[in-house]
């Protein structure tokens, strides 16, 4: 295993841990900071893979602007740590079996499958098309040198389908957030 590969697995693990921290920690500021840490790990992974431009953009846009905005909002609202999440027994399994939830689960699973198949499919054909040896870990996605042009060509050529799948995921997340954050006013039947 090369040094780059070892670093990649370390960073990947750290990213997952930080991402879990975003969901599991109950102090909003800690959530934001672990998300920030996850972004940094991701940016380093991009760097390892040779996408300098992408790494810089990741930090500039996400860590530098969006997360600051998050922090800003949290501080303005002065959020206290949230209540404990209800345990599965309290909610009951039927929540997942209700009709509306069922539709959601099906759509989410379909999106996940679509994204996964897009990534997996593209990768195998891509590697075969390049006529390269099967590569492991970070080496598998290392692009040809020439960072910015190479990035554009890869993103809007070979990886177009995964790219669009990810944007679908973002869209779905945005819709979900709107639904979750929507207040139920009296007389409002939709929910």
């Amino acid at each position, binding site marked *: 295993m090369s040094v780059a590969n070892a670093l990649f697995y370390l960073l990947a693990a750290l990213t997952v841990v930080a991402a879990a921290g975003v969901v599991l920690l109950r102090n909003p*500021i800690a959530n934001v900071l672990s998300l920030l840490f996850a972004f940094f790990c991701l940016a380093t992974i991009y760097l390892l893979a040779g996408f300098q431009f992408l790494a810089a953009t990741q930090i500039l846009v996400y860590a530098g602007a969006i997360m*600051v905005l998050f922090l800003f909002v949290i501080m303005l609202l002065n959020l206290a740590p949230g209540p404990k999440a209800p345990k599965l027994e309290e909610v009951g399994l039927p929540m997942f079996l209700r009709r509306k939830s069922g539709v959601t689960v099906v759509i989410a699973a379909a999106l996940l499958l679509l994204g996964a198949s897009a990534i997996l499919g593209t990768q195998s054909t891509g590697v075969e098309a390049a006529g390269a040896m099967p590569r492991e870990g970070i080496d598998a996605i290392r692009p040809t040198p020439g960072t910015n042009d190479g990035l554009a060509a890869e993103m809007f050529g070979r990886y177009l389908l995964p790219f669009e799948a990810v944007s679908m995921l973002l869209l779905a997340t945005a819709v979900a957030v709107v639904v979750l954050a929507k207040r139920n006013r009296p007389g409002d039947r939709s929910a």
Partner: protein
Amino acid sequence: MNDFAAKVGLTGEQLEHLLAILVRNTVILIGIISVAAVMTLVERKVSAWMQFRHGPNRVGPWGLLQPLADGVKFIFKEVVVPNGANKALYVLAPALAAVPAMMTIAVIPFANDVVLFGKNWGPLVVADIDIGILYLLAIGSMSVYGVILAGWASNSKYSLLGGLRASAQMISYELSMILAILAVVAMAGSINLREIVESQAHGGSIADWNFWKQPLACFLLLVASFAETNRHPFDFAECEPELVAGFNTEYSAMKWAIFFIGEYSAMAVMSSLSVILFFGGWSIPFLPDAPWYLGFAAFLAKTSVYLFLFVWVRWTLPRFRFDQLMRIGWKVMLPLALVNLLATGAWLTFFGPPGAP
């Protein structure tokens, strides 16, 4: 040396290369901290002169050792952590404020290829990477975390307000700053800082400096860098009459000093960036083939002028009001930067890049 290299399993050339990197990085890191220290003295001296005073002149000749005395004082002072503060973040915040400024210095090219002991050691820059400006902006945008977390973790309303103001201000002016820089990048056709300098240096005359081609962008970047570094006239993060001292109200001793090392380092980086983008970096007018040390001296001289400008403006202008700051940022700076970028793009489209025959 070759024997030692063989022992650690490297060739002599590799070891030499490694040592060169180590020396260069150490020198530059120590250099930036010294600049921060000297700037504290310059700030006090210049402010004193502008107010008919002498400034510090007790420690060493002309007070030159004052930063050293201050440093010793800060180290020996007591660190007070306020009640109810988030201790981890409180300790982390000064580092978060200072480290980005020191990281960004890595991509600043100070001089052309260094020739020493009859060998070319490459340009005087820690990391000559292709995405220089992007890296600088990306890491530079991190420094807002130090300020905002310091404000939040202190558990004090003054600190919190200072931190919120600083973050709002930095986000607002980052846009104009990046757009102003983009115009230069479009002209130079590169985001590698060394290449941008070389695009201004090849002719060997002042006329090649980007300042003459992009005066508006230069001005916008200047104003934006005042705002980005929380300096007068935009220093709302530490607006004394309203917020005691802003985000660093609750800080003491070395933690407090680190904020200022960060501020002055950021100033040095912004000055270097402006010099590189608009005033030809290390190039000396009419001396296109000057040796690297002259170029380095020229770079330092130009940067010093810029740094002096920072101090000069601070002790001349009154502070804006916060709504004025936001009005200038969004209603004046941003449209101007957009128009400038648009005009630059149109010019490049119709007349081609400036260097083309």
